């Protein structure tokens, strides 16, 4: 069950704005309609594993794609890293605490910190970074776990938390409400993989789309939305 001349792309919600642009470009170039399905990466994989008719899967983290490859839902040889992201610390624009680094979060003035839960890639990266910096044990009692990066942003915007960890691309979306005060290091590179779905009937088209995403032009669009070029090793 696949409609001819239609490409179904399941993409992580954080890619929504950028991929809509890319889709328009692909449609005008190939004359093929791109149908997007945006949701959290793991939900998308669950759909694909249960037989949802997607052609391309663009995930926000490598673990999800690896799971898909292991379960043979995704074509292992098609997996490509197409973009990278960075993890930043944001505070409300009107924050009076003068925070400029993760170290300062240990201070008494900081009561609550928004962070993604273990299900959220951003949360895992943040935990990893803070663990390496040996801050995690001190900060843990202050954590408010959220189930998406969006939620962390909301908490920061509404000043419910004093600081939060989100992707640079997300911070950009809300740039008038939150301010980026630090970029976190010491974590596995945040790489976005893209892959072809095993059951896809239009693997050629899928590949063409992936190529567009990875092209110079594609990358240019992605960078305007806060993503960066992956250092392909």
């Amino acid at each position, binding site marked *: 069950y696949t409609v001819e001349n239609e490409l179904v792309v399941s993409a992580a919600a954080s890619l929504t704005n950028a991929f809509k642009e890319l889709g328009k470009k692909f449609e005008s170039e190939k004359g093929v309609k791109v149908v997007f399905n945006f949701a959290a990466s793991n939900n998308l994989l669950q759909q694909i594993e249960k*037989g*949802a008719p*997607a052609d391309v899967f663009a995930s926000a983290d490598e673990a999800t794609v690896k799971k898909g490859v292991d379960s043979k839902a995704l074509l292992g040889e098609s997996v490509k890293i197409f973009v990278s992201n960075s993890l930043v610390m944001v505070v409300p624009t009107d924050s009076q605490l003068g925070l400029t680094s993760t170290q300062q979060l240990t201070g008494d003035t900081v009561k609550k910190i928004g962070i993604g839960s273990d299900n959220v890639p951003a949360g895992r990266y943040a935990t990893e970074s803070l663990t390496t910096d040996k801050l995690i044990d001190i900060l843990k009692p202050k954590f408010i776990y959220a189930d998406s990066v969006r939620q962390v942003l909301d908490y920061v915007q509404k000043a419910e938390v004093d600081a939060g960890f989100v992707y640079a691309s997300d911070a950009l979306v809300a740039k008038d409400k939150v301010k980026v005060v630090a970029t976190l290091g010491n974590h596995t590179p945040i790489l976005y993989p893209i892959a072809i779905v095993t059951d896809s009937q239009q693997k050629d088209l899928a590949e063409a789309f992936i190529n567009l995403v990875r092209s110079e032009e594609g990358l240019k669009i992605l960078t305007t939305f806060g993503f960066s070029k992956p250092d392909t090793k």
Partner: protein
Amino acid sequence: MFSAWSEIDWLPLWLTLKVASIATLIAFMIGIALGYLLARTQFWGKEVLDAFLTLPMVLPPTVLGFYLLTIFGKKGWLGGFLLEHFNYTLIFNWHGAVIASAVVSYPLVFKSARAAFEGVDANFENVAKTLGQNRIAVFLRVTFPLAWRGILAGTMLAFARAMGEFGATLMVAGNIPERTQTLSLAVYDAVQAGNDSLANVLVLITSIVCITVLVIASRLLKSNHW
């Protein structure tokens, strides 16, 4: 906020109305059938079955969607069967949204209908029988109209719930603009994209549409004269 109006795509609205109406219709029929069954029969474990049938209320919609996917997906037993024999799937199309919404909202009709049916005085049904009406006629002409107030309340809740359904729909039908993106998914999308003003406008539209439909329904369908 007003600049957001221009961004609005009206397709999700029609889709939502279509999906919610059909889902409500299905929920209505299933809910009434089950409600009548449980109101008028006695069997062991009836209350357990009743509670079991309300479970779609208690599961987080995303989780419910996950299970629906397991059943209706290509690899699910029902989904596989449908695909093989009829080359039909409801994953990633609006039929899926209808199923998800109907499953989530039928308990509302069912519970209200059961209570309403149980509240119907048996005298009226008895007299109808002596007037030569068979079981179906008694149901359609007496039991159902007398239970209507409660059923209608449940159905209106079901419609609201179906319009707002989001978690299960997202899983089963996907969040595909112009195909399965209902208003609530569009709201989700707008929120995800950080477009708060669009989200506000969409919520406003959803609310207005829902209120309008409910008010019209209550005008048209309510029997105030008795």
